[in-house]
Structure formats: C-alpha cells, structure tokens
C-alpha cells in the first residue's frame, strides 16, 4: 500500500502491555496519515502514548493490532533484520535522552550509521564534517559524549540521525531536557530540515515546536483526540 505523497499511514493502531496482572493500553485505534515533507508534532500529556507511537513508526516497536505503513512497507509484518536496514536507510531517530554511544567520539557517533551502508571512507568523513558543522560542533569532533553538555549532545544526536540523509526524521521530546536558549537552536535545526523537504515527526510538549508544525496530533490516554492541520 503506497501513494507517493503519503509517508506514514497508521490504521487502527493499538498497543498494549501486560504489567503483571494489569493490561496497559498505550495506543487505542490510532488512525492518521502523514504526507511527504510535512512537519508533524505529536502532543499530549506524559504517558499519553507519544513515545510508543514514534517507536512504532520507526519499527523499534510493533503494534499489538492495526497496521503501520511507512514508505509503503508494513512494518508490523517485517523481521528485525529488515527493520534494522529500513531504519538505517529511511529513518533518522532523535531520542529524548540523546543516547550517544559513550565509547565513540562525536565524529564516530555520527559516522557509524554510514559505516553500515558501506559508504566510502572519504564520503563518510566529508559528511561527518558537514553535519557537525551544521550543528555547530565540528571543533569538538574528537571529544567524547561525556565531555559535552546536554544541548550539545542533542545536537550531535541530530547530526547522527541525519547521517544517511534519511527522508523521515523522528524526534522524541528533542527540547525536553534543554534550557530555553539551547531549545531554540534545536527548533532552528528542525525548521531547516523541514525547509530541506524532509518529513519530520516530533513528539513534544514544547509550544514553540507546535507553532511551527504543519500537522498536530493530540494524544490522550493512547487515543488520538484531535487532528489539527
């Protein structure tokens, strides 16, 4: 199932977890489409299912029922090897807690997704330099993550997410742990990505991000309560 302009198509998505004797329903019959080049903000209270939805869109998690199509691929039906390759090629993911690899330098953190696609070393080095320059951290390429502030780590996380130039970028609360000034820099990066024609889906509480979004999805207790375009 694919139409050229629809990047993400969610159909009656449900996700539930068994926590001891209690069944927790993280997503209930979520239905929406995301078109190519759109900036989508997913909003909602803590525990409303934003992160779960991003995880399902990225193929990190699978729905309990319903279907999720990303670039025409039914991710719920794919195996782990396909999903890994799919994420590497098509999706950039920015985690709320940065999740940089602590044993690698910033340059290596940005480079490793490219290594899996076996890009020529020269191309990789050029691209790493370009991305670190874009996020303003080229001068710290050989530093390790623990030597950076939270905002700087988040910017590296963006650079890593863009390493393979994926058409779809997912960001989970990218400004959630940052101060106001650093958050603005992150928002600038998001806007630049949108202007570059990338499809961007962001889970956020941040009003400033919501303001620049083309499409807003509001989740409450796992249900999509509003589609605001």
């Amino acid at each position, binding site marked *: 199932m694919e139409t050229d302009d629809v990047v993400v198509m969610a159909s009656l998505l449900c996700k539930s977890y068994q926590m001891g004797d209690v069944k927790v329903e993280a997503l209930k019959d979520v239905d929406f489409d995301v078109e190519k080049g759109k900036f989508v903000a997913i909003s909602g209270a803590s525990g409303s299912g934003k992160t779960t939805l991003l*995880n399902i869109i*990225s193929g*990190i*998690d699978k729905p309990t029922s319903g279907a999720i199509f990303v670039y025409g691929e039914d991710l719920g039906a794919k195996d*782990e*090897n396909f999903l*890994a*390759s*799919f*994420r*590497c*090629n098509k*999706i950039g*993911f920015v*985690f709320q807690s940065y*999740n*940089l*690899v*602590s*044993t*690698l330098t910033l340059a*290596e953190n940005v*480079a*490793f*997704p490219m*290594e*899996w696609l076996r890009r020529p*070393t020269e191309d990789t080095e050029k691209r790493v330099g370009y991305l670190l320059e874009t996020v303003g951290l080229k001068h710290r390429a050989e530093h*390790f*993550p*623990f*030597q950076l502030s939270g905002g700087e780590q988040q910017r590296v996380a963006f650079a*890593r*997410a863009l390493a*393979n130039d994926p058409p779809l970028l997912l960001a989970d609360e990218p400004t959630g742990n940052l101060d106001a000034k650093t958050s603005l820099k992150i928002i600038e990066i998001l806007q630049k990505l949108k202007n570059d024609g990338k499809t961007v889906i962001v889970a956020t509480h941040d009003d400033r991000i919501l303001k620049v979004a083309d499409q807003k999805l509001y989740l409450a207790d796992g249900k999509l309560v509003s589609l605001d375009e």
Partner: protein
Amino acid sequence: MSETFFPINDLLRRKLQTGLVIFALALCVASTLFLLLLGDKIGFGILSMAQNRLTASFVSVFSNFIIFVGFLVFLVGVVIVSFMVFVMMAQRVRDIGLMKAAGCPNDLVFGYFMNELVIVSVVGCAFGVVLGIGADYASTSLLSIIGFHAAQEPINFWVALIVFVSFLVLSLIVGAKPVLDTTQIEPTKAISPSYYYGLTKESDFKGSAKAGISFKIAMRSLFRRRSATLRIIFCLTAVFILVTVAIAGGLIADETTRSWIEKGVGRNMIMIAHRDISNQYRLLLEKFYEARDTPSLNYTDEKYQITNAILERLSLIQDVKFEARLVLEAQVEEIEGWKIDPATASTIPVGDSRRGRSLIVGVEPEKTLSEWLLDGEFLNSSQGFEAVIGDSLARGMFSEPLNQSVKVFGADFDIVGACLDPINNGRVTYVPLEDLQNVTGISACNIVLAKVEASANRENLVSQIATSVGAVDSKFEVLELNEILDNQVSFLGYIWSAIMFLPLFSLSAAALCLIGYVILSINEQRQEFGVLRAVGAQPRTVVKIVATQSLLVLASSYGAGISLGIIATLLILMPEPLVTVYSILEIAGWLLIALAVTFIFSLYPAVRFARKPILEVLSQT
C-alpha cells in the same frame, strides 16, 4: 522485606547469573574433590606414595604431575570463585545504591547481600561435593569396566568435608570484600550511570582511524572495564596453564612413560619357561597394574631349568633371537659406598645396610633383548660383578645407588645403573648370568626370551617354537608378553586420561566465568547496544562486538596460558620428555578445541541478548 526473602527473591530474579555462579563454584569444588578421591583410589595418594602398583619412578612422575595439577586446580578454583563473586556483586552496585538512597542502613544492605553470598556459596559447594563424588564413582566404575580391579570404596567424607569447608570459607572471604566495598560507595555514585558504567573517563584505547566502529566499541569497552577485563584474563590464563599442563604434559608424559615400559618389557617378545615359572613371571609383570601378591616359588628347583635339549631345538629356528636368563628371588643388602666431598676433597660414606627382597635376574649382557631406560650404564660382562637395579629398589633401598654396591647371594656387585622396569614393581636386580651362576652354583637358566625378526612370519614361528618346546617337555610353554605389555600401557594410558580429564571441570568453570564476564560486559554496554540497534544496526552487529571482546580476552589468556603451561610441562614435570610430531599435533588440536569450545559458549549471552526487543533493551538502561 526480610533478610531471608530479599536475597532469595533477588537470586531468583537473576536466574542465569545465579545459576552460573553456583555452577562455576560447584565445578571448582568438584574438580578439587575428584582429584583428591581419584589420587587416593588409584593407589598413589598425593602425599603418601603407595607402593602396591607401578614402580617408584612412575609413582614419582604421577605424584609430581598430580601435585602440580592439583595445585593449579585449586588455584584456578580460587581465581574463578573470586571472579564470579566479583561479577555477581558488580551487577548489584546499582541496586545497593538505590537501597541506600532510599534510606536503607548500611548494615542492613550488607546483611542482605551477604545472605545472598552465603546462599550461593553453600548451594554451590554442596552441589560441587555431589558432583565430585559422582565423577569419582563414574571414573572408578569405568576403571572396573575396562578390566582393572578398582573397588568402589566408601567415600572419604572427611576429604569431602574439608573441600566443602575450604571453598565455602574461601568464597565467603573473597565475596565479602566486594560486598563491603559496594556498601561503602556513596549512593549518588552507585546509582549514577556515569560511575557505574565508567563513562566519565576517556578510554585509553584510541584505535586506528581506519578500524571499524564495531572494533572500536569492543576495544574501548574492554579498556573501560579494565578491572573486570584484567581479572578475567588472569582467570583464563590460570585455566589455560592448567589445561596445557594437563593436555600437553599428559600426552607427552603418556608417550614417554609408554616408551619406558615398552623398552623394559620389550615389544613382540615371547618367553619360554616351565608353566610355574611362566605363571610367576606373568604375575610379576601384572603387579605393575594390579596390586597382588605373588606366591613363593622355589626358582632353583631343577624341574624349572631349561634343558640343553630345549636350547638345541630352539637354536635350529631361524629368524628368532633368543636370550637365556636365570630368574631367582632373594634377599639383597645395600652396601655402603663412598664419594668425594667437593668442598673438602675427603671421602664421605654413602648409604647404609638396608635389606629387602628382590627378583634377581642373570642376563648375558651382550645378548640381552631388552633396552631399558637407564640412569648410569648397563652391565659389561668383562668387568665382572656389576649390577643394574630396578628403580623402586634404587629409590627405596639405596641413598646414591651409583656410588654403592649390592650384596646378592653373599657376593658384592657394584651398581652401575638403575633401570626402569615394570617387573616386580621395579624391585629387581640384574647381574651377569655367569656371575650369578658362579655365586649360586646353578649352571642352567630357567627362562628364555625370544624376539621374532620383524620381517619373519611371527605366527608361524611362535607356533614352531611352541611345538619344539612341547615336544621336549609338555610342561614348558610359550608366553606372549605383548598382552601383558598392552595391559601395562593401557593402565598408564588410563591414568593419564583420568588426569587429563581433570581440567575439563576447570575448563567448564572457565567457560562459565567467561559467560559471566560477557553478561557483565553486555549489561554495561546495554544502552549502547540498544542505541546501535535503534539507529539501524543488525542484531549480528551486537554479537560481532561481543564476539570481538570475547575473542580478545580469550586470545590474550590463551597466549599467556599456553606459553607458561608448556614451560611448566617441559621444565618441571617430565625429565627427558618424548615429543613427537604426532604428539605436538594432538596437543595443538586439543588446545584449539578447548579455545573454540570456550569461545562458542561465551557467545551464548550475546546471541540471547541480540534477540531481545530493542525497547526491552533500552528500557533496562
């Protein structure tokens, strides 16, 4: 939460890790106990040599070997127990920090985790005792099945108790320190991933810019966990020394000792003698592998003498070499000798006047068909009144045999050599036949040894010899010595196999240690692996990183362990080792198998981990 239920629940929560620690501990206890019980059972206690079987030189070689292997088994046990307890407690640092941060007093935290340690130690040691006794029972049964008389004696429970208590105390001592250290850490540090995972330090390993990301992650993580990495390398090095000593030493010693026996008894030899002498000779040879008494026999009885008629008939048979011997039994006496003191250049007396029973064998030195392993030289008939004594006699009754003489039938014989001969457990004295006949007044011989030329038809010739001898006197018969020689060699082979079996326990425990280390390693890199996979790494990338780490640890330990093990084997354990190309290939093969098996086992946690859903991995960081 009581001090009883918390530890039990916590141990059950970490089933795999708890199982590993208990099993590793059990294997260490079992290997030590099995070693002690086996040493006791095959008749040469580690500390007290029993003289019922083998010969003194063999007992000495086995004892040295077992003592060395035993020392290594115990050392490896200590190192493994220490490592496993360290790993067990290292994974509880975060929990301890959380408990302290929540207000749990230090002594209560210490109590909880010490109780865990006690439970694991008691269960592991008890299981080890059962396993060790089971291995001993199985090995004794195997010994009986393959034809050696080894009775299932009652278990020496004192030995079991001592091993149990030793390892219990040991594990509690080595385990208490990390528990105490961990409980002393400030809660903020204990719960901080930066401290817990060591993220605040730059890794010492930079690596080539061209090295792959997986390799860099693998190497830097190894360097970051330096303490645990060094411990596991030390632990595996000790294990590989043990494995090398047991396998290389065992195989080399097996071949060497086999060659000693084959030289002494002679391959493809037959003996012609009166039925009674023949039976007696068989028993004297069989004493090497079965503790038994030989009945008294009057060797000088005329009916046992080989008649000229028999000798004449034998001399007509072509392609066979014959050697006549006179075998007697008598009391021999040590005669004091002397040597020059290098410091004062004066002569000093050597030895005493000890007495003992010995088999006395008169041989024609120029014609002898045997080729013993000798300390000194063999008889020379022109020198007159010389003797070569068996190794048990040399070690048991003489101080410096080559500087002494032995009194046989009232005559003094200068000892010119000590030989390794399995007959009568090495309590034998060889003298020139002519001299023996002169001092005893017996002019005949009572056995003839024969060796068929390799190119001849052995079966036909043996049959021809039997017919010729039987035609003169039906009470004389032909005894094939190959069968007895094979039994002697098999017995040696069995003992060496049993000794080589010992490191199997330690190797298994080492594999568990490595698995424990890999679990610790994965636990510490969990967040990184989760991120790698979330960003697009295939599950096999995680296995590749862990495999690289495991291989590096194994290769370092393997190189160090095998080098030290070979040095120990050649320098300490075996004088004049017989090393053949075949034995080198066999040793290399076994050691590579040990490496490969350990490596494959170590990958199990990585493969298991790689199958976990990414969210589960990330949620546990």
